[in-house]
């Protein structure tokens, strides 16, 4: 029987797969959940920071630039570990879920801020002046004239970044977040068989491969427009 031949029996063991399927699915849900949460808060925070930076106040812009530089220089795993082990000694212990979500949101926000800011800079200054001269307030001009153009420019460079940062939810396994990688590692050592790891790998492909393929067409379309 094919199923008994070494490789398949080891890496695609049907009995093991059946036993751990519910756990792997649960872990996948956690992965997707953290990922979605990170994308929402990260891009929103990045957008807010980019707008705040465009006020033109040094006291506001400098901390934002420093934040973006620091978060883009530090490895995401280091951010996660600093927050996970550091916050409790400040009296704010956060769950593994909260730490992973917060850390990756901060990292994504830094990149989103840079992309949106570059987009705002690329809009000629005359546009803001023209919008203001028609009687729009600063905020109205920002919202309906500058930002739509800036975001359009920011999306292509951001799509890859969003994918690579949401993939990093796997780093949560290091602080024992019960996402799919951590679940699979536990199951693999429990079963003494790597089938759960293969299932996790397949789960990642099912979740992320469509995103990677979609990102290609998003990039193409938004660049052309």
């Amino acid at each position, binding site marked *: 029987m094919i199923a008994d031949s070494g*490789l398949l029996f*080891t*890496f695609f063991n049907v009995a093991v797969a059946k036993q751990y399927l519910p756990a792997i699915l649960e872990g996948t849900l956690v992965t997707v959940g953290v990922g979605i949460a990170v994308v929402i808060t990260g891009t929103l925070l990045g957008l807010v920071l980019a707008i705040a930076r465009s006020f033109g106040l040094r006291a506001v812009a400098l901390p934002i630039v420093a934040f973006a*530089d*620091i978060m*883009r*220089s*530090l*490895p*995401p*795993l*280091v*951010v996660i*570990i*600093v927050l996970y*082990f*550091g916050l409790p*000694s*400040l009296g704010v212990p956060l769950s593994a879920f909260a730490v992973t979500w917060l850390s990756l949101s901060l990292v994504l926000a830094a990149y989103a801020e840079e992309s949106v800011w*570059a987009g705002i800079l*690329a809009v000629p200054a005359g546009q803001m002046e023209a919008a203001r001269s028609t009687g729009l307030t600063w905020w109205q001009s920002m919202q309906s004239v500058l930002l739509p153009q800036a975001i359009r420019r920011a999306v292509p460079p951001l799509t890859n970044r969003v*994918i*690579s940062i949401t*993939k*990093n*939810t*796997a*780093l949560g*396994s*290091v602080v024992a977040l019960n996402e799919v*990688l951590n679940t699979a*590692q536990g199951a*693999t050592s429990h079963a003494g*068989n*790597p089938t759960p*790891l*293969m299932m*996790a*790998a397949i789960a*990642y*492909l099912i979740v*992320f*491969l469509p*995103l*990677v*393929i979609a990102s290609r067409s998003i990039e193409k379309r938004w660049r052309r427009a």
Partner: protein
Amino acid sequence: MNEIIQNFFNLDIYAQVLPFMLKGLWTTIWLSALVIPLGGAAGLAIALAVNQSRNRMVRWAIVAYVDFFRAFPPLVLLILVYFGGPFLGIELNKVTAVALAFVLNNSSYFAEVFRAGLEGVHAGQMEAARSTGLTRFQALRYVVVPQAVKNVLPDLVGNGIEIVKLTSIASVVAIPELLRAARDAQSLVYNPSPIMLAAIIYLALLWPLTRLLGSLEHRRARA
């Protein structure tokens, strides 16, 4: 305030663990110096294969390879290689496992970058170079690839920075790089200061490079 200094910026502890951490930094540096050129070379080879091949199957297979590894978290890849290998009867040592996982991952990112760079080189360049009597390899080596590299220099630097940051996940398989050194030191002194010190060292190493990348991108945007 005292709490924060005690737990994060404890200078006594910094002094105590610094030699150990510098050893970790050294490991981070040579690991990066090992996997960046390997991944870059593999990525260039892949990009050239896509660019030069007229065979649809080859191109399709390579796009699939690139997308596959872009969809795969590097940590998952590392754990599959490291913990899956023994089940296949392949006992890779830690460094080989890390290098293999990183190169598989990086090569796909480098391939994307080089592909974009090669696409930016006008086809006439190759034709002109060939017409002067250069072989195809020589034309690639001296005319096409240098221009492609120049086109995408900021992206190559950006990839390099990402890989240095990525080496931190080698801590998961107990390679004593900077982050691992910090975590080991943390459990010895029972204080999170070493982790903060690691973050500071990463910043000292990577902030200048991030700034350099910013100015390269800025220059390209204006050109």
